[in-house]
């Protein structure tokens, strides 16, 4: 759960995170790091608190205690500041602007931060993700896999240093998941750190450098995919349930 020695200031540092909704404690003492260019997966059963971690990092929920630091600085206290801090996120429900074209969807974050050469950058991202031929199509008319790629292209448009992916493989077929894994590896190789929440265990084991396992709002394990796969606590809480199913 510690930062690799070669990287004293992690890209993302979460320490002692506690989040409560009324009387319900959603997260308790959650701590982990994501290093430069590292891909970390957050896994756990439904309701374990994975998306709540994302929401706390993105200033969508206010933690009761704990700190979130990006590149050594406190994470933005308002969601509007995330992109300027180099943090981009996809949403579980995708959150596309359905009536806007694919190109416009990717242009929104670039406009939001006033990026120069926004159009060229947006078109480049669409080409990277094989979406250029769909640029003029309203996002709401696309099949689900393409819609997921648009959401990813939009998150990558601003060249983030930390990318948060909320269930990126959900609802995708094998070929699309393989392409997604390639994209995640390429993004990480370019130096972008990736934190992803995912239920698709094979995908996680394929792309993640490390895995953080949450259960009932607490970290119960953290390590390489192989270490986590054989951890008895994880088997009991999550992977064991998958195997049984």
């Amino acid at each position: 759960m510690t930062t690799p020695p070669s990287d004293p200031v992690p890209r993302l540092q979460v320490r002692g995170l506690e989040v409560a909704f009324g009387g319900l404690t959603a997260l308790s003492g959650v701590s982990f790091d994501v290093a430069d260019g590292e891909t970390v997966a957050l896994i756990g059963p439904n309701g374990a608190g994975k998306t709540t971690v994302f929401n706390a990092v993105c200033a969508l929920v206010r933690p009761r205690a704990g700190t979130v630091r990006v590149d050594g600085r406190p994470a933005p206290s308002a969601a509007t500041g995330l992109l300027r801090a180099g943090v981009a996120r996809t949403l579980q429900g995708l959150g596309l602007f359905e009536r806007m074209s694919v190109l416009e969807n990717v242009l929104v974050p670039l406009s939001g931060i006033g990026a120069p050469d926004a159009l060229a950058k947006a078109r480049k991202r669409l080409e990277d993700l094989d979406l250029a031929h769909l640029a003029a199509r309203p996002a709401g008319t696309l099949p689900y896999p393409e819609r997921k790629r648009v959401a990813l292209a939009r998150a990558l448009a601003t060249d983030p240093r930390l990318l948060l992916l909320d269930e990126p493989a959900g609802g995708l077929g094998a070929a699309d998941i393989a392409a997604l894994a390639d994209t995640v590896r390429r993004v990480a190789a370019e130096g972008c750190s990736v934190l992803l929440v995912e239920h698709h265990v094979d995908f996680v084991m394929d792309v993640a450098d490390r895995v953080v396992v949450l259960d009932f709002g607490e970290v119960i394990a953290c390590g390489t995919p192989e270490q986590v796969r054989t951890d008895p606590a994880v088997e009991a809480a999550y992977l064991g349930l998958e195997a049984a199913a």
Partner: protein
Amino acid sequence: MDRLVFLLSAGLARGAVLALFALSLVIVWRAARVVNFAQAAMAVTAVYAAFAVTSATGSYWAGLATGLATGALLGAAAERGLMRRLPHHAPLPGIIVAIGLVMVLQSGLAIAFGPEHRPMHPPFSERPFMIGGVPVLSPYDLFVLIAAAAVMGALALLFSRTSLGLQLRAAAFAPETSRLLGVRVPRMVTLGWALAVATASLAALLLVPTELGLNPHAADLLFVNAFAVAVIGGLDSPVGALLSGIGVGLLVSLVTGYASASAAPLAVLGLMTLVLLVRPGGVFAPKEARTA
């Protein structure tokens, strides 16, 4: 036939003003999901500012610029000072506050300027051109058409071709997602209100010289008709506001010409009722809005 041509050309100019005001209601609706019932009172306040400047300087154009600026400021102030502070889970608080604002503004104008009608002179002649002995548009009608078309064209370009317009649309469609994408949503909502009330002010500025004159209630009927236009076209649809504005303008002109002026509002409300029965979301509403 001559009468028909004249009524149609007059209806076109009236329709352009209605479309402009309806568009202003659509902009606020898209930005904040609120029907601004104070739009007419705010627009008339801006027209009074224009009237005061025109009276002091003798320049219609200085008055026009002042009216537009006042409208924009009023829109921004109403959003920042009032609407933003209201609970957003239900439409009722916004409606009640807007109605209160109508009372405050209209009473304030009556106290400051008096309740009587004040003449506002158009910058161009209202005498229609004669083409083949048939009276058609007047120079002022032409000015109204050109001004309305220019503003609607500029707004269309703003929303479809600029970075600012993209952010305005994004903030209107999905505020939470837009925040995550770096869009300053509160700033966009304020800007939407400013644009909307400035547009409504222009509509009122174009209309008042052709009516009885300026008084605190001068835009009340304009609001009622423009609201009907926005509902007929679809509150989410700028194109709907434009097309149904022209249609309702022609309807009002024809009913006024062939029946009576008092029948025109009934015809508009009848058409609105029919549309609500057949297409509750409006004729040009996007599919999602109709089924929502």
